[in-house]
């Protein structure tokens, strides 16, 4: 099986795998215990916290460990229950881990406004100020979209939000290891990450919080994570996340270069075998290595299944909607017509992919498109 769905998840790096294995074997202590075994576990967590902080230009006390990017998003959004200002501005291309939460919150009096995007999948910033209300208490816009890879103007968003004293959250789950993420440069108040998107383990996430006084705990219990996320820590997972974050950012420029190269080769070869393909987002506005492309007259679920038979894993739309032939909401928001929408595949390369893999992918596509 050749894997081209790194936006869905990534394989563990071998260094991360080794570290987690050793921690699981040797460091089973509870980080809250005060004897030395517990202390060791505590040090592992704090080492990871520092690694994450360094990776995103934050300080250690701004990093909370959660179970997932989804949980991190939920923690920020559910905190609005306690806020006086109960209106949220978000984009029309957010992941369900934001948009479905907001839809649920409507029933308890927290409203939201969806900002439109242009046909390149980028939020229309001219609509931000008009969308502001007296009780706008949060702006939540993703750093980059998971289906098409379009990168959003977060710094610009923060600049406007500051004028109105509104905190900004960004779901940056797709970004670490692909583009630079610097929380002090961006100026965001909250930022979500997920380890399994950058060659770390599944089941661990990060919530960056600029000021801990501005967030509430979603999990109530023991006092872990400064009382902001109860539950005994997933020590090995957190360690794996920290190392993965470090490796992802230490090697950022070489990874980015590699991914861009693979993407360029793929785009060129694809146009040769299938000149009528439609790329939804231009390469320069997009996460490196992510190609969202429509095959006119085809259906994505059929293409995907046929590629699967050839041992090639790609995605249609976002991974969370597997088996769903319904058109993508994101492409819909970008004004992509319905037939192209349903004909779209998402191909996302990873650091482990090679030029040979691209050759095999293209010849697989050629075969599938012929039948």
């Amino acid at each position: 099986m050749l894997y081209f769905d790194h936006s869905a998840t990534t394989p563990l790096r071998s260094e991360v795998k080794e570290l987690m294995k050793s921690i699981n074997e040797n460091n089973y202590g509870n980080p809250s215990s005060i004897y030395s075994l517990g202390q060791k576990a505590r040090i592992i967590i704090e080492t990871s916290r520092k690694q994450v902080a360094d990776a995103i230009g934050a300080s250690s006390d701004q990093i909370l460990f959660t179970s997932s990017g989804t949980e991190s998003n939920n923690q920020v959004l559910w905190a609005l229950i306690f806020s006086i200002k109960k209106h949220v501005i978000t984009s029309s291309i957010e992941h369900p881990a934001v948009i479905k939460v907001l839809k649920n919150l409507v029933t308890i009096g927290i409203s939201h406004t969806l900002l439109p995007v242009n046909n390149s999948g980028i939020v229309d910033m001219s609509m931000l100020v008009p969308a502001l209300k007296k009780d706008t208490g949060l702006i939540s816009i993703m750093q980059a979209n998971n289906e098409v890879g379009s990168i959003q103007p977060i710094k610009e968003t923060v600049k406007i939000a500051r004028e109105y004293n509104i905190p900004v959250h960004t779901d940056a789950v797709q970004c670490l290891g692909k583009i630079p993420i610097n929380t002090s440069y961006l100026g965001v108040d909250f930022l979500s990450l997920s380890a399994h998107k950058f060659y770390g383990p599944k089941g661990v996430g990060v919530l960056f919080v600029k000021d801990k006084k501005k967030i509430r705990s979603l999990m109530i219990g023991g006092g872990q994570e400064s009382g902001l996320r109860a539950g005994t820590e997933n020590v090995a997972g957190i360690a794996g996340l920290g190392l993965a974050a470090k490796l992802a950012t230490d090697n950022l420029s070489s990874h980015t270069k590699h991914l861009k190269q693979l993407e360029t080769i793929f785009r060129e070869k694809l146009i040769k075998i299938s000149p009528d393909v439609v790329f939804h987002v231009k390469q320069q506005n997009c996460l490196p290595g992510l190609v969202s492309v429509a095959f006119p007259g085809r259906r994505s679920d059929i293409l995907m299944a046929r590629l699967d038979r050839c041992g090639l894993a790609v995605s249609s739309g976002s991974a969370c909607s597997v088996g769903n032939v319904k058109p993508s909401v994101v492409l819909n928001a970008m004004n992509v017509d319905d037939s192209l929408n349903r004909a779209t595949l998402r191909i996302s390369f990873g650091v482990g992919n090679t030029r040979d893999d691209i050759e095999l992918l293209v010849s697989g596509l050629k075969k599938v498109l012929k039948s």
Partner: protein
Amino acid sequence: MDETIIIGMSGGVDSAVAAAELIDKGYTVEGIFMKNWDESDSEFCTATEDHRDALQVCDILRIPLRTIDLSDEYWKKVFELFLDECRSGRTPNPDILCNKEIKFCAFLNHALELGAVSIATGHYAHIDKTNGLFQLYRGADPGKDQSYFLCTLNQDQLSKSIFPIGNWKKAKVRKKAYELGFNNHDKKDSTGICFIGERNYQQFLKRFLPIQSGQIITDEGKIIGEHDGLMYYTYGQRQGLGIGGGYGKKNAPWYVTDKDIDQNTLIVGQGHDHPELYHRFLTTSQAHWISGSEPIKEVLTAKIRYRTKDAICRLIEKNKNSLIVEFNEPQFAITPGQSIVFYDKEICLGGAVIETRTHSIN
């Protein structure tokens, strides 16, 4: 890849063993799980558990399992029609419609697009080609035969369908599933309407069709109770009427004998042998013949609902879609909306939807 068969995996034991049987016969097999109902509706829908079971089976068999979401099609082409029929006081059979519109239409087309040569399902029925004609036979297990539900299939659909366990006994299927280590080997048979499962039919319907109370009257015109809405009741129904059996002359239970749609009244009669519960004639719409043409034989047998024995009948009028059927013996609770399915011995000939029933014909 050229001989790929795509099997509809429901999560039940029948499709699981059917898949195993195809693999034994040397076919390349792939599974598809159909999502026909919004699974977040966990109160009534068991899709999540079913998918888990299907996945375990495919893991053992080492075949891929993909999911297809047909819930939109199901809603539009099956469920809305089902509700319309209920609203007009009839008792539809959505499983027959599901086979016609979903399994042997939307699913079949999807499988063909994926490059399959045929589809397979775990139905208990048997297809045989004789003299260039595909015939549908009853399944060999008399307690499980499902040809009734397949009465709307046509030659094209039958030519592209395989029922690998159609001639098996249920016990053999379960035994095989146990031997193969399938978790669903002892899973309860799904009975009744697929999207309701074992749940309370009335309770389910009330979510979609609001209560419309009316009177329950006896065939002699006496008011003896109140009903919640005619759509919640079916002809010949005994339980759930809210009137005790002790009432009345014979101390016998009450049965729904008729529905007066205009007056919104439910008409009941006492005793299982009440004459208003039995009719010798019925008329139909939507007649369909599996062979493509109506039967030459005049004397056939027919089932007027799934769980009933065949009864001898004659087609006394055949006007394309609408038939008039005469039974040798009066039949209990002939129900508008249900399907009548015709047989010539073991061969299922086709079916039609019951419109009206009468004691005699002029």
